[in-house]
Every structure is written in C-alpha cells, then in structure tokens.
C-alpha cells in the first residue's frame, strides 16, 4: 500500500507556541483519515502543513514519496475544502469550480465542461450561473467540494467542512462525502472537533491534543480502547476510573475507562458495586443516568424501555470485565 502523506518528527512552532510537536504520521492512499481534537490542538496546522500554507519548523513531510518542504501550495497536487468555503465572491459558480483549470491554462469550453461534470458529481447541476451569495450554506459547501475536486488532487483536505451546517444537513453530507470518497478513491484528510463525525466517517482517526497525536487507530480502537484519559474523555463520554477505584474492583492500580452503555444498572443495593442515582436525563432512544459511587460520579446509558431508577434511589452496578479498559498512561 502506498503512503499518501507521511510526517516524520514534524514540528511547527509559532514563537513559543508549539502548534505541532514532533508528530509522526502515515496516511495510506485511498484512506479516509480524520484528525480529531479540540480547538488549538494542532489538527488544523497539520492540515495546513500538508496543503503548504505552513512550513514545518522541524521534521520532514512527504506526499506520495515526494518531499513537500519548500514546495508552494500551488505546486502541490493537493486541494482543500476550506472551513468558510472561501468561494470567490466575484466569480459565478461555474468559474469558481473551473478556477483551478483556468490558472493551468485550460480553454474556456473545456473548463466549463469539466466544471459542469464536477457540479453534477456534487449534485448541483445547473447552478453554474449563480453567484456564491445566492447559495445556501449546504450548496456553498458542495461548490467548494466540486472546486477542490476539479483538479483531480491526489489528496483532498477538508477543514471542518460540515461545521457550519445544521444537524440534518450535516448527517446527509457525512454519508455523501463517505460515498464520494469510496467512488473516487482519493485520499481524504478530514479535520474535525466533532468526535461523532470522525467515528462515523473515518477509516482511521488521529486524536490530537497540545500539538501531539494522543492516539492513532480505527474508530473502534479509539472508542473502545482509548489510550489515555484525554482520549477516553474526549471521544465519547467515557467514565474515567482512577487507579484506586480500579484496584478495588479489578485488582490493578491503573487508570481505566468504562463506556456508559457497558454499565448495567439494577435497582437495590444488593450487588458488589452500589451507588445512588444523582440525575436522570431522558434522551429519546435511551436514558442517561448519573450515579454517585464511592464519591465518584459515573454515567450509565440505558436503552429506552428499561425501567430506570429514580433520583435518590440506591442501585447496584455491574459490567463485563472485558469492557473495563485499562489505559496505557496517565496523560
């Protein structure tokens, strides 16, 4: 398998700030790769390093085996879908989409033909004459996508592309993006702070914090087997258990994570682990309850229909040993 993008010990400092700190990374060709992290975690800087808007302070970047340092963005066969879409306000849709072809000297007729095809690909046929200002947010997003795809890039970078859309449109676009990526076979690198988006779309996820990759793995890995407290906390809302608690109930003094949906709750104080219900939130398909156990506040998610105990009642908790995931470090 060919490596599309590789980072070798890459750092990017802005003055004293280490936006990206000694990152190693290999993204495979044809992969849908997500960079997930809170704002300021370095994920967007990584994207900009691939696009060529930033240069690494140290380290080495390769794109399809070719050295990327010192290569300006306009000479990289890599295109970006910007967070604010960055559509050219003075050009209509067809000229926006055909921009990349125009600067490469493709004739007008040919340019319009290819751009029209790209617009069909993103399901906006016949929108060529409109101005960006006349489009809805979702339509602008599609135009930005078509514009980035028209150059047939080897890597497509997407910077929080769905952030500005409302929930329903976002879910629809997630599916479409995924389908488009499979169809075109282009490597997608996707930056987001929304863990749900990363989990549902990506083949692999890199979780960023403080300029470093905290964990790199499949969505399954990252969700079920978080490497650290940060990942457990950021990806989903795991119960993070301190070493003394784990030692009492699993025999090892290490930090561990426990998914809320893996916790079984029975009424009454008969079990090995008991606690008191502190709050109950009805979520539609499920009910989420907070339970105070040995001074710790744990969460459990119960499927709808299960009778959940009321606030203040005593409950006992249980879980399968396999669901209690011991973490590597304490970071």
């Amino acid at each position: 398998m060919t490596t599309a993008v590789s980072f070798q010990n890459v750092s990017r400092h802005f003055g004293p700030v280490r936006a990206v700190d000694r990152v190693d990374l290999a993204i495979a060709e044809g992969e849908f790769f997500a960079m997930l992290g809170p704002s300021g975690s370095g994920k967007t800087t990584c994207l900009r390093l691939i696009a060529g808007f930033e240069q690494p302070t140290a380290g080495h970047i390769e794109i399809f085996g070719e050295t990327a340092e010192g290569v300006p963005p306009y000479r990289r066969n890599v295109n970006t879908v910007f967070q604010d879409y960055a559509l050219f306000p003075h050009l209509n849709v067809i000229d926006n989409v055909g921009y990349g072809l125009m600067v490469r000297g493709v004739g007008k007729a040919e340019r319009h033909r290819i751009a029209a095809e790209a617009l069909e690909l993103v399901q906006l046929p016949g929108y060529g004459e409109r101005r960006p200002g006349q489009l809805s947010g979702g339509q602008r997003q599609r135009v930005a996508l078509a514009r980035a795809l028209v150059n047939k890039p080897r890597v497509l970078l997407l910077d929080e592309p769905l952030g500005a859309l409302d929930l329903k449109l976002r879910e629809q676009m997630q599916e479409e993006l995924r389908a488009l990526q499979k169809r075109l076979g282009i490597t997608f690198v996707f930056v987001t702070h929304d863990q749900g988006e990363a989990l549902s779309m990506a083949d692999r996820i890199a979780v960023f914090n403080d300029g470093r990759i905290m964990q790199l793995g499949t969505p399954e890995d990252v969700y079920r087997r978080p490497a650290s407290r940060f990942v457990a906390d950021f990806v989903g809302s795991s119960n993070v258990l301190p070493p003394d608690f784990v030692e009492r109930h699993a025999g090892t003094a290490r930090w561990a994570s426990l998914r809320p949906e893996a916790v079984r709750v029975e009424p009454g104080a008969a079990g090995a682990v008991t606690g008191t219900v502190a709050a109950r939130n009805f979520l539609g398909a499920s009910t989420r309850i907070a339970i105070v156990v040995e001074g710790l506040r744990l969460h459990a998610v119960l499927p709808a229909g299960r009778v959940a105990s009321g606030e203040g009642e005593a409950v006992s908790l249980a879980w399968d040993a396999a669901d209690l995931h011991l973490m590597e470090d304490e970071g």
Partner: protein
Amino acid sequence: MSAAAHAVLPGRGGVFGALADLLWRRPGVLLFVMLLPPVLWLGVIYLGSLFALLAQSFFSIDEFSGLIRHELTLKTYGELFRPSNLDIILRSVIMAAVVTLAAAVVAFPIAYYAARYARGKWRVLFYLGAMLPLWSSYLVKVYAWKLILAKEGILNWAFAQLHLTWLLDLVLAIPVIGGNSLSVSYIGTFLVFLYVWLPFMILPTQAALERVPVSLIEASSDLGAAPRQTFRTVLLPLALPGMVAGSIFTFSLTLGDYIIPQIVGSSRLFIGQAVYAQQGTAGNIPLAAAFTVVPIVIMGFYLWGARRMGAFDAL
C-alpha cells in the same frame, strides 16, 4: 484519477513563475518590496520635512540681519510666551474648543436620526447628506459664507424681512465676539468653522450610534428609565467615543486653519495665520516652526486623551 499524476507539480516556468516562487519562498522580500515605496515616500520625504521643520524651531533669527542663525537655542520658543503670541494660542484653542462643542451639539440629532430612524432611501440620503459637504470644496464652502455674511447678503436680508435687524445689532453689540458686521466678527468666524468641519463630527457619531443595539435602549426603558434618562445614561456614553473621534478632526482642523479667519473675521490672528505670516512676510522660519509645534503638542495631548476614551476604535 491517473496513478501517474505527480503529487508535486512542476512550476509554470518563465520569469513570472520563477519570481512568484521566489516571493513565495521569501515572504520577507515581498513585504519589503511592498513597503519600500510608501515608507520611502512618507518616512523620508514627509517625516524628513517635518523633522527639518522642527529642527529649525531650535534656531533663531538674527534681529539685525534677519538671517537665520544656525545655533541650537530655545530662544525662539521663549518668543512664543510673549503676551501677543500667547493671545494667539489662547484664542485659537478657545475657538477650536467652542467649535468642537457646537459641532457635537448640532451633529448629534442628525447622526441619531440617521442611525435610528432613517431607512432605505432616506438612509442613503442622510449618509450622502453628511458625505457630500464633507468632501465638497473647502474654498467653495468658505466662499458661500462670504456671500451669506456679506452686508448686502442673504442673512442681513432675512433679518430685515423678519424685522429682526435690531436683534442682529444687539448680538453684534456684544463685546469681543461682536463687531461691525457678522463677516468681521468672531461669531462669523465661528459659524464658518462650524459649517466647514461639522460633517467630520456627524459621520463618526453616526457610526458609533449605529453600533448601539436597539435592544439596549429597549432594555433601559423596560427597566423604567424615562427617555431623557435613557439618553443620558445609555445613549450618550455609548456615542461618546464616536463624538470624541469626530472632535479630533474638528479640533485639529480649527486649530491649524489660516484661511477662514483671514477671510471671515476680525483682524486678530489665529495660530495658522501666525505661522503663515512668520514664514512668509516676516521670513522668520524658526518662529513659524516653533508655532507649528504648538498644535502638534496640543493634538498630541488630545490624541492621548482620546485614545484613553476608546475613540480610536470609533475612527
């Protein structure tokens, strides 16, 4: 998607391609190239001239030969403190302050109406209504007032038509600010100053008022404030930075003007006229230079104060 496509594309070639690559690699070079002409022009020609002028204020003029003595001295600055020169400075500062206050009072209703109530076509009209006088010819505006204030002009005519000539005479009889006619009195000078610099007050005030959310005013009246209280406790404090920003212009422009008091007003000098006279007929460049330092220093303090009031954000 052809597998043969490279991830790094060749440059577009040619002189421009190579130059573009160079400028991309060295953004500092690009910045330097962009900044060099304006910085050379303003930094060398303009600032150079200013400093040369300031330097001359430390020279003095030989009273016998009338030639400039190129020795550093504070003697010329000492001359500023002669009673006649102090009078000029005081007169200019008072006039600038009065004009500024009057401009704020006259400008506020216009700015407030434009910001709060004018809509659509009226809004454009109000905006242009302040813009056009701002940009239209300074001299033509002064000339218009020469026509208005002339003895045979429209103002005297209007007073006569209304049988109010006695009122005008009464006003002109007031010592100091009055005079033989409006066109040779401080009142006349004041009116022209006010007229010419008023738009500079309207626009920033209007801009500041436009940034006040209407919900704030509603909140104030919701909490039981009478319109007058709302005006004093909410609107005025929020509009103040804009008005201070406008006052920078009205104050500075009045302080340095030498044409208006020369055309409309008594023969008593203002700073601008003193500078003009000293450098021209008197040939006393050092004293002229020292005089120019006065508005610079006053404006320095003024800007410092304005900055503390947040007026720079309203500019």
